[in-house]
């Protein structure tokens, strides 16, 4: 299957063009985020914390997906940028809580917020960011009518529920040391934890505001799902590689005993003696997992082909995302934003 042919008339953007688009949409969304987070009078122990994570940068993939969809479905940049800012603010609020739940020490190359300011203030800042996301969202919806506002709220409520379920799955598997997991379990978790908030919801918000509520939000769900799963698998694979990405710890997922596709594969493919040792490792508290054990597990995954399997499945999921793109966006007029969306499936598994 040739990617260009599969997307009927839409040439996927190159990595360089995608980077440019991410940067352009990202700048617009970041400016909007900064504008909304700039308080009239700085509240002590709060406003500095709210601005911290957004100021550290990031790929800005979520806001860019939202803004591109808004334009592809007929709206201009103004229709999408408010939603994009809301998405980014909410995402940063969730990151603060996520770092606390995972015990993470570094975020985007700097100490996590709870390490800088303590858990209590960090949780409060996360709460505030999540509520603060409502303001740009409402401002973006105001000119579009109550019907559009209700569609956005319903999509947001669904996303919130799905994301919480996904996070609960991942934390529950780890904290209760759940061992008997399948690929389907992993895909379900990735759908809820990653794809819904990261790809489906931004796509839906862009589609709803861009089309003024006339397009079908369900039409982009499968594209977002497969894109999100491919993204998550690639993220997990990179964590096991030499350079997992700036600000991230190599093999950090192994220390955290994250139930990745590769871990599930390795456990299923390992010999009884290795599985016994693996189960004993997973049962340990995080602080008791040694470098030696982690290195052993990383080597086991390599020997069993688990990392290669994860890479291959990730690419296959990106292929499914390409296929779903061609269905969801069929008939949309060519544009830079359509090419950007068309190129994302390839980009997620080969991104810089």
């Amino acid at each position, binding site marked *: *299957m040739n*990617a260009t042919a599969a997307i009927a008339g839409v040439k996927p953007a190159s990595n360089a063009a995608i980077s440019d688009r991410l940067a352009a949409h990202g700048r617009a969304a970041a400016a909007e985020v900064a504008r909304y987070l700039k308080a009239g009078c700085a*509240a002590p122990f709060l*406003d500095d914390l709210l601005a911290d994570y957004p100021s550290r940068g990031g790929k800005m993939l979520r806001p860019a997906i939202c803004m591109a969809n808004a334009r592809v479905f007929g709206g201009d940049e103004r229709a999408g940028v408010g939603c994009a800012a809301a998405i980014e603010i909410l995402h940063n609020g969730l990151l603060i809580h996520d770092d606390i739940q995972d015990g993470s020490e570094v975020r985007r190359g700097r100490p996590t917020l709870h390490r800088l300011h303590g858990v209590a203030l960090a949780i409060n800042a996360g709460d*505030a960011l999540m*509520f*603060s996301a*409502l*303001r740009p969202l*409402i401002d973006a*919806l105001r*000119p*579009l*009518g*109550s*019907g559009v*506002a209700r569609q956005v709220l*319903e999509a947001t*409520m669904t996303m919130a529920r799905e994301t919480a379920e996904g996070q609960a799955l991942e934390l529950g598997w780890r904290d209760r040391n759940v061992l008997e997991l399948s*690929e*389907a379990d992993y895909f*379900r978790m990735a*759908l*809820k934890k990653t794809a819904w908030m990261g790809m489906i919801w931004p796509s*839906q918000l862009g589609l709803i505001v*861009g*089309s*003024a509520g*006339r*397009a*079908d939000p369900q*039409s982009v*769900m*499968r594209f977002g*799902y497969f894109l999100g799963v491919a993204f998550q698998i690639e993220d997990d694979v990179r964590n096991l590689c030499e350079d997992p990405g700036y600000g991230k710890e190599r093999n950090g997922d192994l220390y955290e005993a994250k139930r990745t596709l590769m871990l*599930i*594969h390795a456990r*299923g*493919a*390992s*010999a*009884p003696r*290795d599985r016994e040792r693996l189960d004993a490792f997973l049962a340990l508290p995080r602080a008791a997992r040694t470098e030696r054990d982690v290195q052993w597990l990383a080597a086991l995954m390599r*020997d*069993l*082909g688990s990392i*290669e*399997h994860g890479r*291959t*499945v990730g*690419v*296959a*999921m*990106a292929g499914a995302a390409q*296929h779903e793109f061609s*269905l969801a966006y069929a*008939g949309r007029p060519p544009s830079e934003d359509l090419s950007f969306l068309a190129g994302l499936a*390839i980009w997620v*598994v*080969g991104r810089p």
Partner: protein
Amino acid sequence: MTTRKKPAGAEPPADPAAHAVRPEPIRMGPVRGTGAQSNESDLKSDADGRTEGPLNAISEDVAQAVRVGYEVFTENLRRGREAANAFSQGEYSLGQVPQDAGQTLNELGRLLKQLTDSSFDIVYRLAELLSTLKPPPPGQSSVPPFRSGSGDGAARSGPAAQALAVAVRFTPSGAGRALTSSLTRPRAQTSPAEIKASPLAPREGGAPSLTEVAIDFDIASGGLTATVSVPQGQAPGVYSGAVWAATQDMPLGVLAIELAQ
């Protein structure tokens, strides 16, 4: 987990029958940046070194993973629809969110004001927005039609993919049960406001028709909701009426319900 692969240099399982071994999968890693590409892979790459055709040669394990991926998504959608239906049959309905949100958010706003001096008046603005916003003028946006469902994805073929799910709710709740669960999708772009139901007439007898049927979008299920208002003292029995889209002359189907005794 169905995938089993013999580890290099690992001891054989104690019980081979309980630990099936599959053949080595074809090695085909993603192309990263401008890195070298495996000779064993059929992947093509463009000037960026990016993968163009990731599905040219995949092992059965990977094909199975994609199939499972589709099944997981379909199952999740089905569960979401069931949850939405169950939710709507209780005392609280998603279709009533705008009204309820006003009350709830006012209360939420009051609580948040007690927590912080920062700008949480946003919730008041949300409540205000929900009650005052007006729809945009017709024809403001050019958008595609509802999804045709004609794709060849593993989980979307067949008549079910052409259907538009409809969840029927009753006011008061529990006043009846739905006999219709789906309609056909509109052929042209159609907003929920352009879909109307004719009054639901009784199948027999001279009871008055049910005239208040509100059609709305249900994002949780990806379909529609039809809220039927049942007047007090309405005669039990089966009622039905056509559902029309303003964008076409053929009805989307018949909405049928049964009122309890």
